[in-house]
């Protein structure tokens, strides 16, 4: 029996058995949290949206049927919708992410080598967050969740070829963004 078949059986059991839902939760909570964290950029909202994702999944589990969309892909789609709503609400009011403030204050006391490396990472994360939503989603699913192109395609409702193509375009755009920052700062970030 494959992992997907096992999971399908577990999901069916979870519709009646809270312990089975508990197992699904344990399996996915960190993955969903990571996805949401890198889409929002702070732990507070990551916790809030992760919780909302699982509440929504539990409330709608009876209606879930695996029609070519495995449970994990369904869960990521819910998380993606929660993030999209969050961005919509946030665009109406300007909010400074708390973690950005924390990172900024930590920089003042960290050793110089760490500062450079952390600054570089923050600049790259900032560039990633400026990409269109689908490109951010692709990079996070690929590198944080470690999903294959086929799996990412199931989450995003696209073919494997389309995902490969989007990934290529995303790297091109990111390279351009980073080169732009290099021009502004006069050195490579």
């Amino acid at each position, binding site marked *: 029996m494959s992992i997907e078949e096992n999971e399908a059986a577990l999901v069916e059991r979870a519709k009646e058995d809270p312990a089975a839902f508990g197992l699904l939760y344990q399996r996915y*909570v960190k993955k969903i949290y*990571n996805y949401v964290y890198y889409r929002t950029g702070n732990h507070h909202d990551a*916790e809030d949206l*992760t919780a909302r994702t699982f509440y929504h999944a539990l409330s709608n589990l009876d209606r879930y049927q695996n029609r070519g969309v495995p449970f994990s892909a369904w869960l990521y789609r819910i998380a993606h919708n929660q993030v999209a709503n969050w961005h919509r609400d946030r665009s109406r009011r300007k909010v400074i992410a708390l973690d950005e403030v924390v990172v900024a204050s930590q920089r003042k006391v960290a050793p110089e080598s760490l500062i450079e490396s952390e600054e570089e990472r923050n600049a790259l994360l900032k560039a*990633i967050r400026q990409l269109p939503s689908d490109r951010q989603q692709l990079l996070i699913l690929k*590198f944080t969740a470690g999903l294959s192109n086929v799996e990412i395609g199931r989450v995003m409702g696209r073919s494997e070829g389309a995902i490969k193509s989007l*990934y290529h375009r995303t790297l091109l755009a990111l390279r351009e963004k980073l080169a732009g920052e290099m021009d502004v700062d006069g050195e490579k970030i």
Partner: protein
Amino acid sequence: MEEKMIREILALQANDLNAGEEDPQTYLAMVSGQQDELESLMTVAARVKQALLPVEPSSAFVRSLRRSLLAMTGRKRSGASLLAKRGLLIGAAALGSALSVAGIIAYVVYARANAGARTPVHG
């Protein structure tokens, strides 16, 4: 053609990055004219992989959300069983009412049939 090759190589490199295996030279040897282009994109990909480090949610959050979800499943189940019980009661009441009506009708039919049979024949 070369662009399609680059796309395929970038997909393979991403798998390698996720597996913690890096061998850019092998891939660079696969393209003839666009080695610089491929190399710079592979470098961007490697940096993205390094930037998107996995983060850990706090264990207190994970535990508290689990408790809350399990409590919610409990409420869902008791709500469902309450609905099922209510449905059963309504069904039983409806069946009882239907049987009562059927009994009354049967009695009326029976009484009329008996009354007809007892009517004396005149003349």
